[in-house]
């Protein structure tokens, strides 16, 4: 067998770019330091350093991608294309060696390229968009550091570096969302985002620790790797060794982190609020790169989830359930937003749900492909929204108040928006079609019919809300700022949800101008992204036949059994013990199904649904139905002000209830605010307070008291100001906590002494009695 295997082996090429992929995060890190140190003294206030460092990273990432394609080309049909791994010892502790290094494979180069590419474009865009901002340098510093963090996470060889990049992104997200902190809502949103994501991060820490302690022994003996190594953990998960409970716990813990970072239900509430940040930030962090980190985590450690959650098993798993809920509720929420960025934010949440759904259903490649295409069209949509607010709507994002009829004034933006919208809706032949349809197709193909229907429903909703947004922004009559009504707008400034409050100089600059197209620094990135939104789908155009499935060839790790360290020289490179028939796509490889007799697997065998036009036509029909229906309704409601529809939410009880539920985001924020956050800050105090307020008052004042309390709750629910960061626990909780804990910290020495001696006495009595 060894002889047979060695025949199909050929040495794999790896070039300079693959060997030096670790430079991609290092260069922006250096750039960040330079901006912090010298940015303010540079002629362009440090922005040039940011753009240049990202450009360098982009070159490196492109080179790495190119060389990776060559490497795959070298490999035989059934050969495992081993990742290019380089490690350096970071530190040693307690017999465990911690390494830092790069792990470059197909997934890495795809995401590396996307991140570097979008980061570069967004930085260019920001040159114009933030011109004159008072914290211009800081903005570029944070943006560059963010890219460094994300790139570090993507190339990470082990979970420690992964965690490091992950945390840096969180910190930068916090700084960037709160960039315009003069508006209190922005800094609250920043804290809310950070706190929500950090809550999920506990899951990451727990997951990494559990994996390390469960896998370390196995990985050390079999592969010579530590339990933090991504390769080691992947191989361990598929080896049949792991205890099913342990790996389930690890998978769930990691998934909690992914939920937090990728805005999945029920931790999605921070993402729409994060739109308080400048638009380039929304475009980069909160649509195309940072928020896919959670998806990336699942894709990266896929074997862990595959085994732990029994993906492709007979029943649905937690990833699919969460993803399906996310797709539907987020899409529904997008309907009631009047802020264009919030529409896009909910759309992002919903699309992330698609990626998760794909991963949960075993459609690894379509999900990763959706990361790729989604990044282009969603970044493009955000940049278009920014362009509209920058040049046409006087920094307002309110579609109902300040937009309308802009297609004539902003041809480039309009064209890019339309193309991207069609891509997002999944219209053939735009990119979104190829990825999203693949996900839906594969979900169905793997036997999860219900989730396929959910996916189709989501596609319908997506088409509908995007049509609504498009109509409101670019069609119909111009309203508010778009019609040049600045005075009115200024008077109503406080009424809008989110405003980009630029520096005064900039305001004065274009206050006199009507809606117009944006400058070249803004339109050029938009145009580039729009082109990619059209064509990027062709990288894996399943409908056109096998030969078009480049992504599958380049990116998907091959599920083959590879000899492990103990059998031969190096992992992956040595020989192939058993060979799957990859062509048929249906699993003959033992990977993920049973313990390989000798050697290890680094990826599970997944299946691919065969493309059928009949299925695709159904989904296209659904999308068109959504577009048409929504167009008709939008035109009637917003265009002609059809009396039957206008005010429907006021007249019809059912519609009203539905609208209110959506407008209040299912009351989830309030649940967090009151339930989760409140219970953290002082469970006892809160309990006592609750008892006092509700029970005692209730008994004393009877039904009237209860109904007043309920009314109060409703009032607060509607009051969005209470939807606040975790830190700002409401004043009454703090007060109640104050009165509860007052005796402990009374300031009286006698009390302190009594507490000291009493504790000593009780502890002594307990332990004395136990040991008598």
């Amino acid at each position, binding site marked *: 067998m060894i002889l047979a295997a060695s025949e199909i082996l050929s040495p794999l090429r790896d070039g300079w770019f693959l060997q030096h992929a670790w430079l991609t995060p290092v260069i922006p890190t250096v750039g960040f330091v330079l901006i912090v140190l010298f940015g303010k003294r540079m002629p362009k206030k440090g922005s040039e350093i940011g753009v240049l460092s990202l450009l360098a990273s982009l070159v490196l990432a492109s080179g790495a991608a190119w060389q990776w394609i060559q490497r795959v080309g070298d490999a035989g049909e059934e050969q495992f294309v081993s990742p290019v791994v380089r490690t350096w010892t970071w*530190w040693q502790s307690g017999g465990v060696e911690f390494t830092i290094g790069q792990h470059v494979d197909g997934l890495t180069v795809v995401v590396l390229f996307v991140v570097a590419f979008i980061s570069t474009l967004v930085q260019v865009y920001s040159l114009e968009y933030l011109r004159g901002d008072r914290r211009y340098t800081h903005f570029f510093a944070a943006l560059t550091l963010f890219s460094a963090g994300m790139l570090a996470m993507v190339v990470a060889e082990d979970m420690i570096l992964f965690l490091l990049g992950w*945390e840096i992104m969180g910190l930068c997200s916090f700084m960037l969302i709160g960039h315009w902190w003069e508006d209190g809502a922005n*800094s609250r949103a920043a804290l809310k985002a950070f706190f929500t994501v950090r809550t999920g991060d506990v899951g990451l820490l727990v997951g990494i620790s559990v994996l390390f302690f469960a896998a370390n022994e196995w990985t050390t003996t079999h592969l010579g790797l530590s339990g933090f190594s991504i390769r080691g953990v992947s191989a361990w998960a598929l080896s049949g060794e792991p205890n099913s409970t342990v790996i389930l716990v690890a998978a769930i813990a990691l998934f909690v982190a992914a939920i937090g970072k990728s805005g999945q239900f029920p931790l999605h509430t921070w993402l729409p609020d994060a739109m308080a940040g400048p638009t380039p930030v929304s475009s980069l962090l909160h649509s195309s790169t940072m928020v896919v980190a959670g998806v990336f985590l699942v894709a990266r450690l896929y074997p862990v989830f595959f085994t732990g959650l029994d993906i492709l098993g007979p029943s649905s798993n937690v990833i699919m359930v969460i993803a399906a809920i996310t797709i539907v509720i987020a899409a529904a929420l997008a309907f009631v937003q009047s802020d264009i960025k919030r529409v896009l934010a909910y759309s992002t949440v919903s699309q992330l749900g698609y990626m998760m759904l794909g991963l949960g259903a075993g459609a690894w490649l379509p999900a990763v492909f959706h990361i790729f295409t989604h990044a282009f069209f969603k970044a493009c949509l955000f940049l278009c929204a920014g362009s509209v607010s920058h040049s046409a709507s006087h920094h307002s994002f309110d579609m109902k108040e300040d937009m309308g009829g802009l297609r004539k004034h902003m041809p480039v933006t309009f064209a890019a928006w339309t193309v991207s919208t069609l891509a997002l809706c999944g219209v053939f032949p735009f990119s979104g079609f190829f990825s999203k349809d693949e996900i839906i197709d594969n979900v169905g193909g793997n036997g999860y019919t219900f989730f396929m229907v959910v996916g189709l429903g989501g596609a319908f909703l997506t088409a509908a809300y995007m049509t609504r947004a498009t109509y409101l922004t670019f069609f119909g009559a111009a309203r508010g700022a778009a019609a040049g009504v600045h005075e009115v707008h200024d008077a109503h400034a406080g009424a809008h949800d989110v405003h980009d409050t630029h520096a005064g100089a900039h305001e004065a600059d274009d206050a006199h101008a009507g809606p117009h197209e944006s400058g070249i620094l803004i339109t050029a990135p938009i145009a580039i992204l729009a082109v990619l939104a059209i064509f990027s789908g062709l990288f894996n155009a399943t409908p056109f036949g096998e030969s078009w499935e480049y992504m599958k060839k380049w990116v998907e790790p091959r599920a083959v059994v590879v000899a492990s360290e103990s059998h031969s020289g190096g992992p992956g490179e040595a020989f192939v013990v058993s060979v799957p028939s990859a062509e048929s796509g249906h699993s003959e490889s033992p990977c993920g199904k049973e313990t390989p007799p000798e050697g290890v697997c680094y990826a599970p065998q997944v299946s691919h649904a065969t493309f059928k036009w009949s299925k695709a036509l159904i989904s296209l029909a659904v999308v068109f139905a959504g577009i048409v229906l929504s167009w008709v309704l939008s035109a009637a409601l917003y265009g002609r002000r059809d009396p039957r529809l206008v005010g429907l939410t006021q007249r019809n009880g059912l519609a009203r209830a539905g609208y209110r539920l959506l407008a209040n985001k299912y009351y989830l924020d309030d649940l967090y605010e009151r339930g989760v956050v409140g219970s953290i800050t002082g469970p006892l105090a809160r309990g006592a307070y609750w008892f006092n307020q509700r029970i005692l008052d209730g008994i004393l004042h009877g039904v009237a008291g209860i109904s007043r309390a309920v009314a109060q709750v409703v009032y607060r629910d509607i009051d969005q100001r209470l939807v606040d960061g975790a830190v700002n626990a409401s004043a009454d909780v703090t007060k109640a906590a104050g009165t509860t804990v007052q005796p402990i*910290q009374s300031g009286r020495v006698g*009390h302190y002494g009594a*507490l*000291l*001696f009493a504790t*000593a006495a009780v502890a002594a009595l307990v332990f004395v009695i*136990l040991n008598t």
Partner: protein
Amino acid sequence: MSFLVSSAAVWTAPSVDYHALAPEIVLAVGLSIVLLVDLFTSERNKWLLSVLTGFSLLGAVLPVLTLALHDDSTRSLFDGRYVVDEFSLVMKGLFLLAGYVIVLLSSSHVEEGDYWRGEYWFLLLTSLLGMVMMSSARDLVSVFVALEFLSIPAYMLAAWRKRDLKSNEAGVKYFLLGVFASAVMLYGMSLLYGVANSTLLIDIAESISLDGEFGAIQALAIVFVVVGFAFKVSAVPFHTWAPDTYEGAPTPVTAFLSVASKAAGFIALVVMVLTAFPEGRDVWQPFVWILSALTMTIGNVFALRQTNLVRMIAYSSVSQGGFVLMPLAVAGGVAGEAALRAVVVYLIAYAATNLGMFGVILSVSRKTRSGDIASLGGLFTYAPALGVLLTIFLASLAGIPPLGGWIGKFAAFQALLTDATPWAYVLAVIGAVNSVIAFGYYGNVMREVWMRPVPHGDTTPITTPSSLQIALGITVIATLVLGILPGVVLHFGDMADLVGAFGG
């Protein structure tokens, strides 16, 4: 009168290894010189004293280094009553360097306030000498005397701002509760002496491990001794003095108490539980477990509702103490060495970060003259360097990589997971939840610094004296290096093997 008949053997002078005692001797000479020079210098030249103090501390670092580099790095003096091993050398180095940073933090503060300067430096050095002695003390008498040695000057330093009622109150509270706690501890020590017939910790360990001998009296003794040190490390519910004293005491003294004094309490606790009571783990492990869980949680809950910055830091340092206790709660089992390493690593990382934190507070309060968190509003806009430093220190305290605090938390959790018992996991979960909650108040300060307007619009820049600048530089470099190159500090942790513990 047979009472007077002596049964003692002929006295022989104990042989003293002066190299092993060199750090103590250098400090003792240094503090005597400070005391003498104080007598003969005029008010204008009192700055000389701070320089002398700093030099004494750095001078004492030299013998620590020579001892550490010497082949035979374990030296036992006075029949094992005073042991210079790697653990004690690491801790001595920590105390001396932390002391040096505190001198830098204090010097401008002391020059400008109406302090008794010479005596201030004298007492600071005395207390540090007590800490240096504590790290080597391996019998009950030495531990007790070292504890009082480091505490008595600290009580007085807390009250050093004589005309300030708050400072008086801080000193009195610290003193009284400290005396209560040491009384409880002494009672426990008397029982230990009674059952072991020796004051040597390793003899006590033997007597406690006698099979079947473990009884109520040993349990009582262990509880009382642990209580005494739990006070020193301000573990809940023995923490009550800490917030009041930290808020009232002069800020450099607060830095001293929250870092050096606390670390001394921890090493005493570690030495006691690991060398004297390894077999009493059924008593102290659950006790420390409860203390740790309470300390993390209550410290956080109180910190969340503070508006005074120093008071918030006080509660935060109470809560941080809970994290150091966390590995100790499993130190009696298989995770013993990991726990010892975690404590050492955590203390080093915490010392660097917290001292830096106080450096920033001292610098800012020179301008704002206020203790409110709100007084930091918009700090970044008019003092960007201080804003960034404060953010780094806060992030490190919150345990965000790649800053020093992270590696401390990592080591602590590693110890818990190594133990791999259900109780260890429960404590790890409590710790994880608390480390998230802690971000609530750290984040609040960050928000003030970055995202709030400057109070009263007063954006005159802050002038930071050079001594403070040096202190900030040292601490921020230490914080960053510890986080980025954790090998450095973990090496100290690995090295810190405690003679007498783990059957060695």
